[in-house]
């Protein structure tokens, strides 16, 4: 019986449950107080690009089209200075079997679970990933359970998550719907313990390696269509897997000079564990409520070591407002004939702004779309927002205030990314890292090098940041 065991007892048993359900002994990768061998953790999956593509192609995952957005590029050039306005392309990941790039993440996990003899898979997710795992499990003949945070204390379901419930159930999964709160993790652990199923976490090495084919494919497609690698690839950023896997795939394709941009919807001021805020966010992922905590400390995930480590790969981190994303979703439909989203449209809004800074012969790629439909659509979200008392109006997107006011731009010239200060993010990462080992033995040179790699900085930078932390605590 799910959640028949006490909260304390289950959390105390957490490490053993994780070990049994992921099948990875994370301890063997530990090299310091903080440090672990990240590359070996990924390499030990045994999957290179070719082998990943082989597994993914069995279920029709990947090889999605790359589409040039000619009309949106024209609009960019109308607004940009003469000679500016990069060509914008989008990778139509909605063409994957369950309608999003999450099929790439689910494919290796389910394949591995099957190969190792697990009877079923469990995923804690309220988003597309649940449908992806359920779809892959259906194809593999495995059982699937999805644990969702789905409704508030008034019983009002978030519209997009309601659609995910339906999709998962359509694929034959058992869906456990919960009200708001991080204790979802407790229910998730109970289910793993009771069933002995595989933990198809978003953050295992399999989930990240599965995304590498996305970056790899798009680099090749851009080169084939334009004769060069992209200048900018923009990924909608939440837990960090999308950025991490895409960037790694780009590098493996040889696109080492391509800049990787992480884009999130700004949800500043809303609390992720708040029952009240739950249905006032209008976005269920791709927002700062996930991307900030996961970028500044990835190891808050449902596995001991997160294989998504975005700060290692991000060249620029930007935010856009809710209203800007809804505006661009409508523009994508009406100018390009693509009704997609919501997730990739966060990157689209960022691309629309950033392409104006680049030269006209440069190339920007939005690396995903997702299927749209009832619930996961601007109409559904804006109607829910209005129902929850959030004001919706046209105006200056700078007046957008998450949870209170969604401002749809009046003119495309108002769409502008806001840069997140990566220096601040790096300091925050180091602070979280130090807090995580507080009271333990001092850090070695290996740990300093690890932190330097994690923050894309230097040993000298890390030493200085560590000293600063000691001075201020």
């Amino acid at each position, binding site marked *: 019986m799910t959640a028949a065991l006490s909260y304390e007892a289950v959390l105390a048993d957490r490490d053993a449950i994780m070990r049994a359900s992921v099948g990875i002994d994370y301890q063997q990768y530990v090299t310091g107080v903080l440090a672990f061998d990240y590359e070996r953790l990924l390499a030990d999956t045994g999957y290179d690009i070719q082998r990943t593509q082989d597994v993914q192609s069995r279920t029709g995952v990947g090889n999605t089209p790359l589409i040039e957005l000619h009309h949106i590029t024209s609009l960019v050039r109308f607004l940009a200075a003469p000679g500016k306005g990069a060509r914008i392309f989008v990778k139509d990941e909605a063409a994957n079997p369950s309608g999003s790039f999450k099929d790439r993440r689910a494919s290796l996990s389910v394949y591995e679970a099957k190969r190792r003899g697990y009877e079923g898979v469990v995923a804690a997710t309220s988003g597309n990933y649940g449908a992806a795992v359920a779809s892959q499990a259906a194809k593999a003949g495995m059982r699937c359970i999805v644990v969702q945070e789905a409704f508030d204390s008034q019983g009002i379901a978030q519209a997009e998550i309601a659609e995910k419930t339906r999709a998962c159930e359509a694929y034959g999964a058992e869906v456990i719907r919960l009200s708001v709160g991080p204790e979802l993790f407790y229910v998730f652990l109970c289910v793993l313990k009771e069933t002995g199923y595989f933990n198809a976490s978003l953050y295992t090495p399999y989930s990240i390696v599965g995304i590498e084919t996305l970056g790899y494919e798009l680099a090749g497609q851009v080169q084939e269509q334009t004769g060069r690698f992209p200048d900018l690839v923009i990924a909608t950023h939440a837990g960090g897997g999308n950025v991490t896997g895409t960037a790694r795939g780009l590098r493996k394709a040889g696109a080492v000079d391509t800049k990787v941009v992480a884009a999130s919807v700004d949800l500043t001021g809303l609390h992720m564990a708040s029952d009240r805020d739950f249905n006032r966010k209008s976005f269920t992922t791709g927002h700062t409520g996930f991307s900030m905590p996961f970028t500044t400390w990835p190891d808050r995930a449902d596995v001991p070591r997160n294989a998504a480590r975005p700060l290692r790969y991000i060249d620029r981190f930007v935010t856009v407002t809710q209203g800007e994303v809804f505006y661009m979703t409508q523009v994508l439909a009406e100018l390009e004939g693509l009704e997609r989203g919501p997730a990739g449209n966060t990157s689209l809004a960022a691309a629309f702004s950033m392409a104006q800074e680049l030269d006209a012969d440069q190339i920007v790629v939005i690396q995903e779309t997702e299927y749209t439909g009832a619930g996961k659509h601007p*109409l559904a979200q804006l109607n829910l927002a209005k129902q929850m008392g959030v004001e919706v109006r046209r105006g200056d997107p700078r007046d957008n205030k998450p949870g209170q006011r969604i401002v749809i731009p009046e003119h495309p010239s108002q769409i502008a990314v806001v840069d997140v200060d990566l220096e601040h993010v790096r300091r925050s990462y180091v602070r979280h890292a130090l807090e995580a080992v507080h009271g333990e033995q001092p850090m070695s040179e290996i740990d300093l090098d690890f932190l330097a790699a994690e923050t894309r900085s230097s040993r000298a930078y890390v030493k200085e940041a560590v000293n600063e932390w000691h001075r201020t605590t």
Partner: protein
Amino acid sequence: MAEYIEKGTWVEIHRIVLPAGQRASQVPGETQQVPLEMRVKGFLAERSSLGDEVEIVTSVGRRLRGMLTDVNPAYTHSFGSPVPELLMIGREVRTILGGTRGGG
């Protein structure tokens, strides 16, 4: 008199996982004041009535217990009404592009 729901009917059960006041320490005050609730669908194991404590068999074959709250639960999420704030966007951007193309 309560109406019976036949064994094997597709239903939803509800259960309190953590009561109000017994939530994790890190959750905000207003979330502390409400319970952590769970809803799951499955096939009813025995003939019962709404509000009964029942057992279901889920789509993966697990047996779960909870209060019977819904029969053949509907998917009610939708698009809703057209949103006036979005209706003019397409026209506006086409006008801008039309202008750059010299009309059309």
